[in-house]
């Protein structure tokens, strides 16, 4: 964890680790684009639309991974009162919202040529993911309400837990509601993917996961610095008031 020294305030959130990680992400993205557009073959039924799998599936995976990290971070805040975990929960929720939006967007774009519709209310995963996005937007709204740091952390941790606990009920209720899904079974387990497509998909999961870690580290450090700045300002203001008090007292003694 990067703790800025009071005399030496860092001007950026980068480090050797993040730079190496960033380079790995860039190289991975280039490889993913090349393999995704030119290496992996077209699908017999879905033609080029199948290439969306290289963004859609990793985004969906990272959506649930990011929100799971938020749930764990929230539990740890409530249990240990650890600022570290609170910042992790916050950062992961923000990144999760981006991935969740990307999942829904790419899913809609993919749905048009394959299901002949941008949106289907009978699809359990689709509706559940949308509700998850709305719940996490609510989480970020609570984060932005302001107030005492500890109170904001507690409020948002409880919102994250409410979301985590209620999500399986949302999933089950939508499943019962229509009792059907347009989504295909897991492409990885049914063995329908060609070798290069499967490899590119797995590469996509790895590259997007590295990207998540890279953004997460930077977001965490930004959060930590914001916090240091707030408390640093407070300490400075207190020191100034004390100095003023001393001056007044010294003047009075004379």
């Amino acid at each position, binding site marked *: 964890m990067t703790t800025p020294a009071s005399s030496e305030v860092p001007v950026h959130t980068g480090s050797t680790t993040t730079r190496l990680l960033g380079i790995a992400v860039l190289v991975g993205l280039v490889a993913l684009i090349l393999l995704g557009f030119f290496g992996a073959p077209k699908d017999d039924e879905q033609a080029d639309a199948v290439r969306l799998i290289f963004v859609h599936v990793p985004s969906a995976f990272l959506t649930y991974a990011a929100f799971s990290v938020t749930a764990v971070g929230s539990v740890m805040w409530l249990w240990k009162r650890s600022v570290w975990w609170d910042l992790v929960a916050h950062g992961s929720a923000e990144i999760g919202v981006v991935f969740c939006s990307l999942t829904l967007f790419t899913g809609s774009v993919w749905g048009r040529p394959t299901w002949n519709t941008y949106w289907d209310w009978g699809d359990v995963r689709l509706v559940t993911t949308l509700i998850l996005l709305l719940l996490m937007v609510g989480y970020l709204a*609570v984060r932005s309400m302001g107030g005492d740091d500890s109170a904001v952390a507690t409020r948002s941790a409880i919102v994250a837990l409410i979301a985590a606990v209620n999500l399986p*009920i949302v999933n089950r209720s*939508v499943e019962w509601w229509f009792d059907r899904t347009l989504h295909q079974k897991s492409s990885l387990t049914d063995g329908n993917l060609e070798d290069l497509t499967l490899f590119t998909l797995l590469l996509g999961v790895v590259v997007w996961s590295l990207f998540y870690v890279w953004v997460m580290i930077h977001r965490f450090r930004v959060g930590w610095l914001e916090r240091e700045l707030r408390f640093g300002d407070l300490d400075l203001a207190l020191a100034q008031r004390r100095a003023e008090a001393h001056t007044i007292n010294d003047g009075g003694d004379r």
Partner: protein
Amino acid sequence: MWRDVVLVAGKDLRIEWRSRVTFSQVVPFAGLVLVLFGFALDANRPVLERATSGLFWITIMFVTTLAVQRSTSIETTDGARRALLLAGVEPVAVFAGKAAAVAVQLLAVELVLVGGIVVLYGAEIDSFLLVVATCLVATVGIAAAGTLLGALVAGVRARETVLPILLLPVLAPVLIGATRAFDDALGSVAVDGWAWIGMLAGFGLINLVLGALSYGVLLEET
């Protein structure tokens, strides 16, 4: 503890009874929403009959945000929340009491709205028992989730806008489940309404437990 629950619920209901906010503002608002849905759907009887269950529960969701905001503001004005803490009442009892008071108000509104959908939308009730069971079980979950989230946004700026953003997605399973159960009770769609009561009960139980566990933390720290 149960005595405290009754005391807190009684306090909230007494305040409501004396101020008449539920009856003079919330019930007319709910009726107005029913009328506006009629306008929006072009007063088309078959469409209204088919959509009655959903419109009923959407109206209840809107009413819930008002009832919860009202329940929360009772505690936030004049430092009443701090006084409640100092009174030594168990936070669980405060949560249960406030949720019970919200539930009673919602049930009163639901009673009026059932009359509204019969008169305005021409709904015919096939199973009164299923209507009553749905209202009771769904309202417990709505009141529990609403009271918990109401306490969560209490005392912060912009709580009026944040509460619906938080509450309405959480209540999505209730909207689905209660609508399907009502569909069966009104005979508009052939579904097993009683199966949905189980899901609604599960939702209510989970949110009651969540509220009981976290309400104390919210009262003391926020």
